[in-house]
């Protein structure tokens, strides 16, 4: 075997050397897997920078010249269909729903973790069980109510639904983050005569802050990604980005570079936020059961 730049120097006993070589091989395997999983995303971004003719070729034109055509098309410079209303709808629905989720979940988690109510785990499981019911089973009554109250095609209906969709997970996450506040510290504060505000700001908040950020992030991601409700309950005015994305293909035939540009732009906020909070993302996604 030739010595690759990654291979360590030949020192130590034969056994150590063998173990090092396996280590290098496993490292390389991991790199290959990482690149393999990333490849479709890389392809999406590369295609988004190609002209429509270069995008739809066989074999693929990897080295074709770069062009902003797809992005210009997406942002409506040439086609006249602006993506801004759906992007703004998505942003509004996701941010407002996230704020509501936090307002409802933090006190509930406080009641379940810091000052546990009796049968707190039953309450916790009630929250989780609502998440296990398929959303689609409640869609029709929501649709009928919306139709009769004139809330169809309104972003505020989505806000309500996204809040209810993310609330159970948020309560679980916040509870697990708040459960990390040491009981001894709470007791000590109580003995020292600390009031509620003081305990909350000096003891609970510092521990809870990263948890609140993670909860907000996950609630934002799930709301931003949601398609079914948005598709059924919104139309021309309140359509969100995922609805806009599906519409790109069905109504105008296929423009691959444009679709890739759109997919890249719409995924970007979630990807950036996800990279920034990798660790908290895990803990959040596993409902705080994994630390």
């Amino acid at each position, binding site marked *: 075997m030739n010595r690759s730049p990654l291979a360590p120097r030949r020192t130590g006993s034969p056994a150590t050397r063998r173990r090092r070589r396996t280590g290098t091989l496993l490292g390389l395997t991991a*790199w290959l897997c990482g690149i393999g999983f990333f490849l*479709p995303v890389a392809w999406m971004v590369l295609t988004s920078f190609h002209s429509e003719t270069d995008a739809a070729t066989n074999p693929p034109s990897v080295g074709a010249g770069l062009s902003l055509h797809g992005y210009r098309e997406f942002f409506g410079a040439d086609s006249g269909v602006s993506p801004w209303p759906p992007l703004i709808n998505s942003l509004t629905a996701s941010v407002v729903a996230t704020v509501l989720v936090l307002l409802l979940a933090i006190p*509930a988690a*406080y009641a379940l973790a810091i000052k*546990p109510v*009796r049968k707190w785990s039953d309450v916790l499981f009630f929250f989780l069980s609502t998440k296990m019911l398929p959303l689609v*089973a409640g869609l029709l009554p929501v649709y009928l109510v919306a139709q009769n109250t004139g809330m169809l095609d309104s972003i505020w209906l989505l806000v309500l639904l996204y809040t209810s969709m993310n609330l159970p997970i948020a309560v679980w996450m916040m509870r697990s983050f708040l459960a990390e506040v040491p009981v001894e510290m709470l007791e000590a504060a109580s003995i020292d005569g600390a009031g509620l505000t003081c305990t909350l700001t000096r003891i609970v908040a510092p521990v809870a802050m990263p948890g609140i950020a993670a909860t907000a992030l996950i609630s934002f991601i799930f709301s931003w990604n949601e398609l079914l409700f948005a598709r059924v309950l919104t139309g021309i005015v309140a359509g969100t980005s*995922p609805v806009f994305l599906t519409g790109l293909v069905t109504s105008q035939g296929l423009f*691959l570079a444009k679709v890739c540009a759109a997919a890249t732009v719409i995924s970007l906020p979630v990807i950036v936020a996800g990279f920034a909070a990798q660790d908290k993302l895990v803990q959040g996604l596993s409902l705080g059961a*994994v630390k």
Partner: protein
Amino acid sequence: MPIRTAEPAPGAEASAVRRGGGPAARARRTERAKNWARRAPLLPALVFLVIVTQLPFVATVVISFTRWNALAPENRGFAAFDNYRAVFTDPAMRASVGTTVLLTVTVVLVSLLLGLVLALLLDRGFRGRGIVRTLLITPFLVVPVASALLWKHALYNASYGLLNGSLTWIWRLFGSDDPPQPDWMTDSPLAAVEVSLIWQWTPFMMLILLAGLQSRATDAIEAARMDGASAFDIFRYLTLPHLRRYLELAALLGTVYVVQNFDAVFTITSGGLGTANLPYTIYQTFYQAHDYGRASAQGVVVVLCSLLVATFALRTVSSLLREEVTR
């Protein structure tokens, strides 16, 4: 709200005295007040969830017993079990139950296995581990509709997709002008949906299992290695038992999400060619056939099936919680 005060709040005591009653009654009253104070922060979330998620479901149950098609509004009435009978005798419905089970089991098992391999690879130290981890989690962060569109048009497409494009390229390397060009989405539609979902969910499994691996106690492993245990023995007798609950958790959470998948089925095949799962079938009955009664009956059946999975899921999670109950 008092923070764990040993004495009842002075105000509460005073009012109890004013209202009279023996010390036992007074204690009971303050106890009740304290309980309410503890429960109060919980109520907004509970009330909100009951209204927004439970009430619609009750309405779904009611509608499932009515004959109601929006295209024929005058013919509306009590249908007893007609809708349910229709659901259970409908071959399309039965097919979609089978599709849902197959899709969910395949996606969850394969991505769990791949996720385990990747987590084990990433658990070791090597150069650029952080970068590889970031590369690996990216598929999970792409918006689901975007990833479905990406697979359908940029990768699977028979005439210019990356898969067939690569085949052409490889065959040309060997001087052949006749590469195989399968039409992935028509030849194996369900597999096409599954592969895109596996790609999307493997990172999720990997993240949870990696967190599990990194929470292992290292001293037991060191000791086992000292005693000459092989890498496989360590995996089999130390790592795997430790990972068990993480594997269960990842599988169950994955199941909850994949069972409900709508985006990939809707985008990649539009439910055609035997890929319609339950959420898609309900969407179709309701949104395209406008048969409200039947769609509701389907919804109720789906919920009953989900309760089965949910029971297992809740049991597993409760075993995770049990160690915390001492609090």
